[in-house]
């Protein structure tokens, strides 16, 4: 019996034990998806695309806070980041971007998507439009940082011949890369949905917004590049001829107007009872926000959350033992105009005496609502809790003021000749050199999430990072119109943006100057990643950050001038007065101060206009030319 069993099983093994040669060792992988499987399913293609969206490149962004503190807008209130205000020169490799890995992935996606006949025509068109949008966005980012780069629009393959020279491509002209971005948007806008409710995926709206921004950048480089003749290369890899400026500005205005006249987007106006709150909410309110065109979205409990609120929450109401890092500078705060459209420093002194304010916030009254919407000021509230920002107590001592302060948040001390056991410094600082305290006297408010739990490491925040919004499109239109000698049109768009901020006295066409355009972008778009690139395209960066130290008198002069030197960060510190018997007892005075950590004056060299290409890349591709002045 056992013998038969053995024979039968041996026979079975012979019959079924072997596979065809073609099937031998052919097993579908169980841990990755194959191309074939992906390009049949819309939801799988979408997840590939999600990864590409996730790799979108930003310079300043809410998930990388120290980048905000490299220039003049904010001080880094964290001990390990003080070097940013102690470094004179910007290294030439800063802002370098040479991501051909990502460009290849995008090109592969476009190639495969074009061939994916299993997808519905409608879905395929949209996916293709989105991938081409992302590729153009990456080239736009490349050209902003590096100048002209090789324009590769097909995935390249190495043939293992031992000679890779056919893969080496020379740099395109700077203008050619901008032309590519602009031309792509003309095609892409017809492939994408025209839906203002879609804000985290590409739409016709963002295609137009990006086209306007790119054309405006190219136009201003052409126009203002004339002032820096050494920032050019012979082959046009860096620098755009001046005669192209008008064409680019015309294109920028046309694209912006197409979006504006489309009427699908509008400024955020849901909380008009308090214009400061309204401006702040334009960034954190994600429900039916008509202003946001394109954003990087986050979602609670999904793993994709951001910690901007943890990073910057005021110590007095912090939900963790940290916060207060990005401290907006006085240099920025004083740029916000008074309601009569004039510039003025904050009034700290009357003659030789201080000006005494009843409430810490009074000094900021009567200004552009974007001041309080962008910056948490002394005397304002966050999450319903009043901030506690004051640097110490000034007490009257033998005919002069002496100061008593503390070394830690809300320290308790004694006033000599006065009460003992009183708080001598605010819970939020400012304390010079104390990290997480408001060392400039200010904290950032833009993108801060007022939801409870947003300051906890375990919860974090789902406020989105706004990359394109309607107000910027209006300002782009205004700038392009101004450069095309249509100041009345420019004034119209500027006034729309300004009216939302409570500046109801309209600017006349004659008021629109280059200084006005620069200033409006500075106050409207602070902390939105425009600072470096705006100063670069206007060729202002080497004048604004010229390496010369800045005195307290200089910092409060020339407000509203485009080329105002801003090499060092200053703060504005409130002090409480203790002088019983005087009418000024309990009032507040203000001092303009520079943190002891601000030791260097920033210098933006001509070689910083376009970041250096790494020696490795140059060595691998002899066709590349270096960027100038490095």
């Amino acid at each position, binding site marked *: 019996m056992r013998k038969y069993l053995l024979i039968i099983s041996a026979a079975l093994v012979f019959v079924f034990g072997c596979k065809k040669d073609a099937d031998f060792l052919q097993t579908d992988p169980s841990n990755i998806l194959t191309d074939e499987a992906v390009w049949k399913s819309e939801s799988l293609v979408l997840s590939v695309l999600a990864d590409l969206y996730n790799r979108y490149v930003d310079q300043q962004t809410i998930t990388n806070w120290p980048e905000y503190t490299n220039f003049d807008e904010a001080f880094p209130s964290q001990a390990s980041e003080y070097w940013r205000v102690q470094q*004179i*020169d910007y290294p030439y490799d800063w802002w370098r971007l040479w991501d051909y890995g990502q460009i290849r992935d995008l090109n592969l996606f476009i190639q495969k998507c074009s061939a994916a006949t299993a997808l519905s025509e409608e879905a395929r068109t949209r996916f293709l439009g989105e991938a081409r949008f992302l590729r153009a966005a990456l080239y736009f980012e490349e050209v902003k940082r590096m100048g002209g780069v090789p324009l590769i629009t097909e995935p390249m393959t190495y043939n293992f011949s031992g000679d890779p020279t056919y893969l080496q491509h020379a740099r395109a002209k700077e203008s050619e890369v901008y032309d590519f971005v602009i031309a792509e948007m003309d095609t892409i806008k017809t492939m994408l949905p025209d839906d203002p409710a879609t804000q985290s995926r590409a739409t016709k709206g963002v295609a137009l917004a990006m086209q306007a921004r790119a054309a405006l950048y190219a136009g201003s480089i052409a126009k203002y590049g004339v002032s820096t*003749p*050494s920032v050019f290369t012979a082959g046009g890899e860096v620098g755009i001829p001046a005669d192209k400026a008008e064409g680019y500005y015309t294109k920028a205005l046309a694209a912006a107007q197409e979006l504006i006249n489309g009427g699908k987007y509008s400024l955020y106006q849901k909380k008009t009872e308090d214009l400061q709150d309204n401006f702040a909410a334009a960034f954190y309110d994600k429900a039916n926000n008509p202003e946001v065109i394109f954003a990087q979205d986050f979602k609670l409990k999904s793993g994709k959350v951001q910690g901007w609120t943890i990073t910057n929450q005021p110590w007095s109401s912090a939900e963790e033992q940290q916060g207060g890092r990005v401290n907006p500078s006085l240099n920025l705060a004083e740029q916000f105009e008074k309601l009569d459209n004039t510039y003025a420093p904050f009034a700290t002194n009357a003659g030789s005496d201080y000006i005494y304010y009843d409430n810490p916030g009074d000094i900021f009254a009567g200004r552009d609502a974007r001041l309080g919407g962008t910056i948490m000021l002394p005397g304002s509230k966050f999450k319903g809790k009043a901030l506690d920002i004051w640097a110490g107590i000034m007490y009257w001592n033998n005919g002069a003021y002496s100061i008593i302060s503390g070394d830690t948040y809300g320290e308790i001390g004694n006033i000599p000749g006065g009460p003992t056991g009183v708080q001598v410094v605010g819970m939020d600082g400012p304390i010079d050199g104390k990290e997480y305290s408001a060392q400039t006297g200010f904290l950032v408010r833009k993108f801060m999430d007022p939801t409870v739990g947003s300051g906890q490491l375990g919860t974090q925040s789902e406020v989105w990072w706004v990359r394109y919004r309607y107000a910027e499109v209006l300002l782009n239109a205004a700038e392009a119109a101004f450069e095309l000698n249509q100041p009345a049109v420019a004034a119209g768009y500027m006034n729309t943006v300004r009216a939302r901020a409570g500046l109801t006295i309209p600017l006349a066409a004659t008021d629109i100057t280059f200084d006005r355009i620069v200033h409006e972008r500075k106050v409207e778009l602070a902390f939105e990643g425009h600072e470096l690139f705006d100063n670069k395209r206007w060729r202002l960066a080497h004048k604004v950050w010229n390496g*010369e*130290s800045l005195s307290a008198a200089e910092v409060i002069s020339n407000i509203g001038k485009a080329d105002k030197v801003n090499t060092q960060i200053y703060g504005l510190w409130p002090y409480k007065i203790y002088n019983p018997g005087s009418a000024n007892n309990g009032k507040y005075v203000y001092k303009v101060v520079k943190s002891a950590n601000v030791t*260097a004056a920033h210098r933006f060299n001509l070689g910083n206009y376009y970041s250096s290409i790494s020696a490795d890349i140059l060595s691998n591709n002899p066709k590349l030319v270096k960027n100038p*002045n*490095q």
Partner: protein
Amino acid sequence: MFRRKYITGLLIAMTAFACKKDNYDEPKTTFQGSITYQGEAINVASLAVNFELWEPGWGKSGAIAVQVKEDGSFSSLLFNGNYKLIIPAGQGPFRSIINNATNSDTIPLKISGSTTMNIEVMPYYMIRNQQISKSGTTAVATFKLEQIITDANARSIENVYLYLNQTSIVDQSNYKVRTAVTGSSITDLNNVSMSVDIPSSMSSVGTTGDQNYAFARIGVKIAGVEDLLYSTVVKIDL
């Protein structure tokens, strides 16, 4: 007990003999000199000017950057070999001179043993006959600005600065006080005079000063040239 001694001894022996010396020697050859015009060093700002040394023949090409010091001197430790020296365009308040051997601004350089070599360049201007001294509570400087490049590449003077600092590093990023005159307001380049008030915080006779000397320097900003031209640093007793 006995075993522990063995292990300790073994460990010591391993520490002493396990490693070999590095198989490469560090670079030992010094290459030094100054950036000069007719043998006279050209003074620049600290960390503002550098030039590049290229050594061809290796797999990957990359430059060795050599920093020029404030007084125009430089020094670099190198391996022996053949180098090419380039001053990148836009570096320094000067222009490169065409080299006869290469017929370009590239200077061929053969390093075998320590070398001292001055690099001749064409500055836009030179500061001559400078005298800086204290007069009361001001520092007074007199000097002559000689225009060297007068052909089509000539540049005008944008500003002239007189700087004071408490350390011997004095330039446009490192100073306590400075005065400026615009180039257009200078009537006679052969006879320029400037003064700067010595602040009481720097002076030994002041209320807070505790250092009885200061350093002064003249800086010249040439239109369209990023790096400033400087005079030598002068120590002034207060």
